[in-house]
């Protein structure tokens, strides 16, 4: 591009800017100075501590930014990015997808059904998938999503689905999440709109992260979002970067965008419920997928893959990146489930969808195979007729034949022709003997392939040449190969000629192919055809290269070969000439056999001369030797190999499987008998393995030294003043001239001295040398320079970088067919996965709106065992979870129902069973479930059918440990009652039932309710289960004795995958599974009777009687009288003799008594009166006295006051005078 003349900057000469600048110029002379120079004190070190602190802080911040470096394993051509569009119903999901697709591809899609893949840019493809509100779908899609477009109805606000989905994402690795607000046009008031936006944005930020992107789609125009807004959203999507998620990067997965039922229709007719074979198609994501691995299909179950193959990409990225934007042809759209894609490829078939819509027509124009399609559309003939024709017309495998050769062996040469096989619905490669049908339309093909053909042919021939010595058994095969080509003796010549050149260095792949043909029963043939493989392969399983492997005397192989031969013959028969041709070939075979036998003998004689050739073939041989279908080798072959002492002699000893199968299992590698370590040559052959031997050019100390000299050249020892000059330098100086030139020259000279015979283009050599030297210098400089601040982190990063590069380069130049065998299918490939034995409901109830995911499983992830996990009830789930209630877990790829037991770890490491999960705390949970690597997150829901709970996610957590046994215990209290109490010993019953049980618990500690501790001693004979125990104190008969123990609990082995995809269409979100106990009771109307003891009753207290205190007599005697117990007994009846008799008075006596009575009462009255009088008198006296006292006190007080005042005054005076005196003194 031409450089455009740019307008020069015009300086302002007047106005505020110019003034400002002027001002700056005037004052700026000082300010522009280096601050450090201008004010050195401000930058001096004031405090070492402070400086250390700032340094620490800087380092901390720097290190915080680091992430653990990971090896970058993203493939060169990554798979399309999965964009999940989710949101509550009626929020505009389909509309958004439609708009985005229109934005990227200019095509309209009416029904969004299944994943839609589009090419969005030069380096990016996108797969859109819509997520409905079934929790199953939400869980599945969260696991495969790279980007989530979360649609929110702004007029309504957030809905539970949004939060549920966010929580699901958090558990399964957080993909990128972008919010999209819709329905913004419903707001009439602008202020309210702004406020709502802000509120929603901040809530969204708290859920995702601060500053998460939230898009606003303001209104609809003709039922679509505004073009500019969609365009902006599209731009954001196409530049977004993604972080690798642990689960996704460690597991291969396919989000299937196509599904075909391959089951035999006859089998379905006989039994409509028979298991189905299904092939699924999609981009491989995550990591390498191995053939024959196990996959889990969420919603269906675990299956082992029967076959994986890769297909051509239906939605490829544009090949050459030269222009800015994509043209219309490159904006591809692929959505087979939605009926778009027109032409779909299979491994062995091409399906053509004949569309009537406009969009699809466009689609077809884009296809590279348009001609084929057009021709197919244009034909009037029926399929059968066409198939018949194709046999004749399509000859691609003729590459091995030059026209002359065709002339020569028209009869013998089997050719390959494509045929449409109606039975298996695929193209087949039929071997046709070309004697009758001349190629008419394939000439150009031939011409193209001529050169390759020749070389390939030669390879073939070589192979044959080697086979010659390999035994009679090979002969059959040899015949066939011989049939391909013309004259065997000529080939021999060739072998010898070519023996010097390493021809087979790259023959690996072809070999692999020919072998592959054997293993995969001819299925992959057509693919090879497409690739335009040389005709050598068209010879089918009998190409010369594999003969070595087949040539042993195993019957199976022989049979195979014969069958193959037959096939060829048959095919030929079918292609018209019946009997005579067959005879011909047979004759030919016999003829060749005899000839071959002879040549074999010749070969034996030439064995030694061909040793080198054999070594050339080592590579393919080795691979075949190890991984070949038939590992054994022929006897003859091995014999000579032993003598050769080659690499591959070792696997030979197994003549037949039987012998080897029962041989001794020993890893020791017996030494080669041919090596005699007494001979000098043998010793010499390993001389360079030691440091004392010869070194390589680039590592030799002398060379390195010289290089150093060149690098550092002359130097002067400053102390002594001696100038050291490199030899090279000296020379150069003598010659004079430019330094660089000199060095190069010098190198050249050296080179010539060392190897004068090597004469290359001088300039080239020089240039290379110089470049090499520069590179080395730079490297050295870099290492030295970086050494200062190269941290561990940098080293690690560099190491990872190197590894990533190696990963990319190692298999880069390999053919994909071979590469997948080493690596597995790499992510980004479009694969076809064939899965047998799927339940028929999968096919019959297939609904493309539900995603089908094939999640690859790692080693032993297909097994089940006990999983220990850390679990926390979700804080929004409003009920705690009960042990032994079934729970549906989403773990790894899987969704399954299981029965968890909750536990908590005690301080001593004991796992104690909990009846319920704690409210706000983590607890442990153990389940019986699929083995999943530790650290994998999971979430739990109670049901997947319908929406019953307000927030469906019940718990979340992480897997901690996997095991095959559990150690959860629950507390068990055994209760016993004493039936005989001695001093501290006690007999207890009711705790056990047999003597044996007691014997098991001898020595166990027991305790009473009142806290008296004891120990079980021994069982008693009767009653059974009774025992003797001792306590630290004497028990009461009313005591209850406890034995506290721990009882191991077993986890119920329920693992019930959620088979939601097998449900009928429309009912896929109604999967029920096992009900919880509560649900069961509710459904059956069972109500528990309350525990009688828990019921409230009126409290009735019994009166308690106490026994009297008994004090022993001795003690009583010793007590002081005060403490002696008082015997307050009731008086008994006085005995008769003590009873006094009644007195009866005389009348006189009565009178006297009455008088005395009267007198005494008078006296008493008088007395009383006098006393009262006395009393009043005394009171009066007391009153008087008090009065006097008070008076006196008053007077006294007065007096005292007076004296005290006088005293005080006196004192004051005294003080004053003394003060005065003191001041005078001073």
């Amino acid at each position: 591009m031409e450089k455009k003349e740019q307008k020069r900057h015009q300086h302002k000469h007047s106005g505020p800017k110019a003034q400002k600048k002027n001002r700056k110029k005037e004052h700026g002379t000082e300010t522009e100075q280096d601050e450090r120079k201008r004010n050195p004190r401000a930058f001096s070190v004031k405090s070492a501590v402070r400086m250390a602190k700032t340094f620490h802080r800087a380092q901390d911040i720097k290190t915080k930014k680091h992430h653990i470096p990971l090896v970058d394993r993203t493939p060169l051509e990554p798979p399309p990015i999965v964009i999940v569009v989710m949101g509550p119903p009626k929020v505009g999901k389909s509309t958004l997808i439609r708009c985005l697709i229109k934005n990227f591809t200019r095509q309209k899609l009416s029904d969004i059904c299944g994943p839609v893949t589009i090419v969005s840019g030069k380096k990016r493809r996108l797969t859109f998938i819509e997520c409905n509100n079934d929790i199953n779908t939400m869980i599945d899609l969260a696991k495969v999503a790279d980007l989530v477009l979360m649609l929110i109805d702004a007029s309504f606000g957030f809905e539970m689905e949004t939060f549920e989905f966010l929580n699901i994402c958090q558990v399964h690795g957080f993909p990128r999440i972008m919010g999209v607000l819709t329905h913004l046009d419903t707001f009439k008031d602008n202020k309210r709109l702004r406020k709502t936006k802000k509120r929603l944005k901040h809530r969204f930020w708290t859920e995702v992260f601060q500053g998460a992107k939230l898009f606003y789609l303001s209104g609809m125009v003709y039922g679509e979002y505004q073009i500019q807004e969609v365009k902006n959203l599209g731009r954001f999507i196409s530049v977004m970067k993604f972080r690798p998620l642990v689960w996704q990067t460690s597991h291969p997965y396919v989000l299937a965008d196509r599904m075909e039922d391959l089951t035999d229709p006859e089998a379905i007719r006989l039994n409509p419920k028979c298991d189905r074979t299904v092939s699924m198609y999609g981009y491989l994501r995550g990591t390498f997928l191995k053939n024959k691995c196990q996959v889990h299909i969420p919603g269906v179950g675990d299956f082992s893959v029967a076959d994986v193959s890769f297909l051509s990409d239906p939605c490829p990225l544009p090949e050459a990146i030269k222009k800015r934007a994509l043209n219309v042809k490159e904006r591809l759209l692929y959505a087979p489930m939605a009926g778009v894609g027109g032409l779909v490829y299979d491994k062995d078939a091409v399906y053509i969808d004949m569309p009537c819509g406009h969009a699809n027509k466009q689609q077809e124009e884009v296809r590279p195979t348009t001609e084929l399609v057009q021709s197919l559309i244009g034909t009037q003939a029926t399929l059968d007729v066409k198939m018949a024709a194709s046999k004749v017309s399509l000859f691609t495998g003729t590459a091995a034949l030059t026209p002359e050769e065709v002339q020569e062996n028209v009869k013998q040469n089997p050719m390959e022709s494509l045929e449409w096989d109606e039975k298996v619905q695929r193209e087949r490669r039929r071997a046709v003997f070309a004697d009758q049908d001349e190629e008419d339309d394939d000439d150009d093909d031939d011409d193209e392939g001529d050169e390759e053909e020749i070389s390939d042919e030669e390879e073939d021939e070589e192979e044959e040449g080697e086979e010659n010595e390999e035994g009679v058994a090979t002969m059959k095969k040899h015949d066939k190969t011989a049939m391909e080509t013309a004259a065997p003796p000529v080939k021999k010549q060739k072998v010898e000629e070519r023996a010097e050149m390493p021809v087979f260095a790259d023959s690996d792949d072809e070999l692999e192919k020919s072998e592959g043909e054997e293993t995969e029963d001819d299925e992959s043939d057509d693919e090879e055809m497409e690739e335009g493989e040389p005709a050598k392969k068209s010879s089918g399983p009998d190409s010369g290269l594999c003969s070595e492997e087949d040539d042993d005397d195993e019957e199976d192989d022989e049979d195979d070969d014969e069958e193959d031969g037959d096939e060829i013959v048959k095919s030929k028969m079918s292609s018209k000439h019946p009997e005579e041709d067959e005879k011909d070939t047979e004759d030919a075979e016999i003829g060749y056999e005899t000839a071959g036998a002879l040549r074999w003998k010749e070969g034996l004689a030439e064995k030694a001369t061909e040793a080198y050739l054999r070594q050339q073939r080592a590579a393919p041989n080795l691979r075949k030797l190890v991984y070949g279908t038939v590992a054994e080798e022929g006897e003859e072959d091995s014999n000579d190999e032993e003598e050769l002492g080659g690499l591959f002699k070792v696997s030979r000893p197994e003549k037949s499987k039987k012998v080897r199968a029962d041989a001794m299992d020993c890893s020791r590698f017996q030494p080669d008998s041919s090596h005699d370590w007494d001979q000098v040559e043998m010793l010499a052959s390993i001389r360079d393995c030691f440091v004392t031997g010869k070194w390589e050019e680039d590592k030799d100390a002398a060379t390195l030294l010289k290089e150093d000299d060149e690098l550092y050249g002359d130097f002067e020892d400053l102390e002594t003043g001696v100038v050291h000059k490199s030899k090279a330098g000296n020379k150069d100086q003598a010659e004079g001239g430019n330094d660089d030139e000199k060095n190069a020259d010098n190198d050249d000279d050296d080179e010539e001295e060392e190897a004068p015979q090597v004469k290359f283009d001088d300039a080239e050599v020089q240039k290379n040398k110089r470049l090499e030297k520069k590179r080395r210098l730079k490297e050295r400089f870099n290492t030295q320079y970086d050494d200062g601040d190269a941290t561990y982190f940098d080293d690690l990063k560099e190491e990872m970088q190197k590894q990533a590069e190696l990963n990319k380069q190692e298999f880069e130049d390999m053919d994909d067919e071979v590469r997948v065998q080493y690596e597995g299918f790499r992510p980004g490939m479009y694969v076809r996965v064939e899965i047998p034995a799927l339940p028929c409901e999968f096919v019959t109830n297939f609904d493309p709106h539900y995603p089908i995911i094939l999640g690859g499983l790692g080693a032993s992830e297909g097994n089940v065992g006990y999983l220990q996990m850390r679990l926390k009830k979700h804080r929004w789930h409003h009920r705690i979870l009960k042990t032994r209630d079934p729970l549906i877990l989403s773990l790894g790829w899987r969704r399954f129902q299981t029965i968890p037991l909750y536990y908590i770890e005690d301080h001593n490491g004991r796992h104690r069973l909990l009846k319920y999960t704690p409210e706000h705390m983590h607890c442990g949970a153990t389940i019986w479930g699929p083995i999943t690597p530790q650290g994998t997150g999971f979430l739990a829901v109670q049901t997947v059918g319908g929406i019953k709970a307000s927030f469906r996610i019940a718990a979340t957590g992480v897997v901690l440990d996997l095991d095959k046994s559990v150690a959860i215990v629950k507390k068990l209290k055994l209760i016993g009652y004493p039936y005989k109490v001695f001093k501290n010993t006690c007999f207890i019953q009711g705790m056990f039932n047999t003597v044996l049980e007691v014997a098991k618990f001898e020595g166990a500690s027991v305790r009473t309710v009142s806290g008296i501790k004891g120990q079980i001693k021994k069982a008693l004979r009767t009653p059974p289960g009774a025992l003797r125990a001792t306590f630290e104190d004497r028990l009461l008969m009313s005591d209850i004795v406890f034995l506290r123990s721990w009882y191991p609990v077993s986890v119920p082995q329920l693992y019930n995958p959620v088979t939601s995809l097998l449900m009928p269409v429309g009912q896929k979100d109604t999967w029920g599974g096992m009900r919880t106990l509560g649900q069961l009771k509710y459904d059956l109307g069972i109500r528990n009777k309350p525990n009688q003891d828990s019921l409230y009753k009126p409290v009735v207290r019994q009166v308690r009687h106490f026994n009297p205190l008994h004090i022993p007599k001795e003690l009583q005697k010793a007590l002081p009288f005060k403490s002696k117990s008082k015997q307050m007994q009731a008086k008994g009846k006085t005995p008769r003799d003590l009873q006094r008799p009644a007195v009866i008075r005389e009348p006189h006596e009565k009178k006297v008594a009455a008088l005395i009575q009267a007198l005494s009462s008078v006296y008493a009255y008088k007395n009383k009166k006098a006393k009262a009088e006395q009393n009043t008198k005394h009171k009066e006296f007391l009153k008087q006295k008090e009065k006097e006292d008070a008076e006196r006190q008053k007077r006294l007080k007065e007096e005292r006051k007076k004296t005290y005042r006088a005293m005080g005054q006196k004192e004051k005076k005294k003080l004053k005078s003394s003060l005065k005196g003191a001041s005078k003194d001073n």
Partner: protein
Amino acid sequence: MEFEGCNFFRQRLVLSTLSGKRVKIRNIRSKDDNPGLRDFEASFIRLLDKVTNGTRIEINQTGTVLFYQPGLLTGGPVEHECHVQRSLGYYLEPLLMLGPFMKSPLRAVLKGVTNGPSDPSPDLLKITAVPLMKSFGIDGDGLEIKVVKRGVAPGGGGEVHFSCPVRRSIKPVHLTDPGKIKRIRGTAFSVRVSPQMANRIVDSARSVLNTFIPDIYIYTDHMKGQSSGNSPGFGLTLVAETLNGTFLGSEVVSTPQGHGDPVLPEDLGRNCAKLLLEEIYRGGCVDSTNQSLALLYMTLGQQDVSKALLGPLSPYTMEFLRHIRDFFQIMFKMDPQKPGEDECKGGEKILMTCVGAGYSNISKTIK
């Protein structure tokens, strides 16, 4: 998975344990006069049972059919009385393979024959396998093989302590340059014979090796009393160490008492030295005994490309490669590397390349 015959018995069970795939082995010596599993195999199964949890083993009545359903590897302290028909190397090799993938670090005490004629001895594994494991990131002070008592065949009575740390994943390796041999070390041992035997072995071995390199030191190890086992015998273990940390080893033991002709210590020393030369001739970064160990660790590494240069593959290794393909669906790329025209560096080497399976230790507990 189904297999036939008793050969490669250990490989199958080890790979089964690591991959979690169940294995059925039929026709174990079914045509033999003494059909079924031998005692040493039964002992090996018992050892596997000790280091795992939840393993299910079913053997039919004649012992010709074995069904093995692997459990999870637990590790921890294990003591095992190995059968004297095979030496401890037979049991130690699989433990080396399983060791890093246990739940808790393995501390195994194996008792039996330490030095036997058919299996690598603990001495050899100590000097060759342990440095190899270190290159895969399995290092630390926990990794150790210690010969406490030496017992030679047929009597046994030896004791070996093996401890191995636990790893979550294995590092990929690039062992492409073996480097040049800088020194040769060795141990000549003798038990229940004259201590002079060891010295005689040393002299003869040195006489062969001295032509290549002067830095040779062979220790003599004479064990007496309790730690000398039940039978007399002597032997030599040699190891060549290269500049790049490759260890190539060889060993020879005297014929067990009462089984064949006795050997002279001089012959034994010479033989062992020649075996070492053979091993050097084969070359590579891993010696022939540990080929399968290295390949296994490469297979179980992270999903990165690993490379290792090996000498010619032993039949045992070849079968191991096949088994790896069966159990882990991983194939190795094999590129033969021929020595140059004028280089004298022994025979052909094979560069093995593979992409790891991304295996992670599922037994290890996280806190």
